[in-house]
């Protein structure tokens, strides 16, 4: 028998606008994730900051009009354990001071949970940017954005940290098109591999094969796979085939094939290089990858026809135009 059941909203409620949180005033909610809420707030000097509130949906519920989340005694151990993971993100970021890595300003405890205060950045995620500005994804854009982003990643790696969750939605684009790394939530992975509620979460399409199979092989090359996948996604507009299914049957069309003549061979080869399934065949360091991305593009014969899809689209357009 089928029965429709009434809906009850279960998502967490954000703190209200105007709420005085420690020395900050909440302006509005920026995002709601499964693990946290991000707010725009202002500090005592009126400067804008972004504040990430630890609030795992499954363990802590904040109803409408409430300030402190309800955490039942049975969930408290898991809630506290997850907090450790949130601290890991804070620890990782606190040690990094780099123009291409989001800056942490403060960390504090309130409302029975914890908060991470970050520099507020004007912009949007690379994912949003790509979706809204497809024509802007030129050869130069790709090289500029990723070379700078790699500066940030180099800094991460030089602190013996791995990001492990690089993807366009965790890369932030300032309005001046400089990229920065946000969301080091995956730092929790190392720690969380053995807790059920915080099981390592990798994003299919962006996570390297090692993420799925042999986690002891994780290294800078794993983040490099994710950089390659992110570059691929910028061109494709969607995530590439996930590494685990590629291991089964690799159906990923190489960038070289898919965008030949639209971007330089050298850029496309570099993307394919990063996306090698075998970690040993990828660039082994961010530096090696950066070198490939900053090498001058070889002069190429005058632009030929776009790929076959481009040709068909071109023809269709002409037809409708002539009507």
């Amino acid at each position, binding site marked *: *028998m*089928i*029965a*429709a*059941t009434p*809906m*009850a*909203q*279960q*998502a967490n409620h954000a703190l209200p606008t105007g709420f005085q949180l420690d020395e900050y005033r909440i302006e509005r909610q920026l995002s709601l994730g*499964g693990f946290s809420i991000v707010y725009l707030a202002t500090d005592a000097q009126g400067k804008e900051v972004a504040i990430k509130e630890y609030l795992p*949906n*499954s*363990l802590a519920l904040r109803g409408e009009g409430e300030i402190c989340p309800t955490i039942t005694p*049975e*969930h*408290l*151990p*898991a809630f*506290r*354990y997850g*907090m*450790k993971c949130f*601290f890991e993100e*804070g*620890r990782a970021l*606190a*040690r*990094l*001071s780099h123009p291409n890595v989001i*800056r*942490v*300003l*403060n*960390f*504090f*405890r309130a409302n029975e949970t*914890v908060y991470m205060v970050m520099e507020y950045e004007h912009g949007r995620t690379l994912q949003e940017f790509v979706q809204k500005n497809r024509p802007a994804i030129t050869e130069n854009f790709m090289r500029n954005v990723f070379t700078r982003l790699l500066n940030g990643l180099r800094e991460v790696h030089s602190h013996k940290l791995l990001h492990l969750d690089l993807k366009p939605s965790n890369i932030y684009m300032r309005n001046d098109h400089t990229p920065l790394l946000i969301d080091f939530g995956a730092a929790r992975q190392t720690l969380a591999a*053995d*807790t*059920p*509620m*915080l*099981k390592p*979460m*990798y*994003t*299919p*399409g962006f996570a390297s094969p090692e993420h799925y199979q042999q986690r002891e092989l994780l290294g800078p090359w794993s983040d490099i796979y994710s950089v390659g996948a992110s570059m691929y996604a910028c061109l*494709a507009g*969607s*995530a*590439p*085939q*996930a590494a685990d*299914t590629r291991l089964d049957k690799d*159906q*990923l*069309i190489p960038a070289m094939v898919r965008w030949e003549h639209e971007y330089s061979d050298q850029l496309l080869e570099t993307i394919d290089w990063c996306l090698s399934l075998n970690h040993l065949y990828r660039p082994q360091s961010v530096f090696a990858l950066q070198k490939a991305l900053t090498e001058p593009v070889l002069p190429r014969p005058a632009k030929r026809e776009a790929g076959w899809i481009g040709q068909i689209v071109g023809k269709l357009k002409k037809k409708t135009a002539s009507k």
Partner: protein
Amino acid sequence: MKFTIFQESRRGRRANNEDRLGYCYSRDALLMVVADGMGGHYYGEIAAQIAVQTLTGAFQREALPQLQDPFLFLQKAISNAHSAIRDYSSEQRLNDSPRTTVVACIVQDNVAYWAHAGDSRLYLMRDGRMLARTRDHSRVQLLIDQGAISEAQATSHPERNRIWSCLGGEQAPEIEFSRKTPLENGDVLVLCSDGVWGPMPGELMAMSLKDANLMQAVPMLLSQAEVRAGTHADNLSMIAVRWEDSYFDQTTSAVSTKTMPIDAITTHLDQFGRNPAYKSELTDDEIERAIAEINHAIQKFSK
């Protein structure tokens, strides 16, 4: 046919996992099954295993590539599974025949057909909401239907595990069938055992699965259910499928069966992973220290 599917089963806090699950598909039809076994001495898992194997076996023989009559198929296969469990227990001379619930669903021509006996559930989610679900064959469900107790009271009711229909018992199972239910692009079907739905409201599952990547969302939901259930966590099993018939981009992990030969069948039964219990909590002191340490690092590295 185009869909994304993911399944996972966990032991929870129980000594062993008596849930079994599996799916298989041909070019034109998909079958999913979840069975939750009961009975001492590991026989519960055998009953569940027999149920899943009987259904997937029948599917492999009959879905070539379509089933003639999906409801008839479900009815026959579930009855056969019941008989197979009875046969097994008489061969083994078991006094107390092992039993199992079953919930099974066929999708063919973009229409879903499901059937169940016991308290393993099927949910149909659309746009982040629960559109339909099976009614448990349990005492508490009867009490709820009579208005004697509320849904909320049911979750802690001492008799919540008592079911009046199952496979393998003295009496033949009462099998309840759905209607033919046309699917829309983006619909999510969830089959799960009570270890999942007990601690996890269906609304929450529906929201979490909306537009989510199933490979991430299913493990996350299981983890959440496990945490919510705490030390009493039962075995947890879940299969979720997102129907994506007109989904365009082929570079996702979606399964496209168009290129499969007519007689090919792909079957996935689950292997059982072990799940270490999570580590101990933080004390108030440790929290204060962690915060102080992070703030110290912020000061030190900000120059």
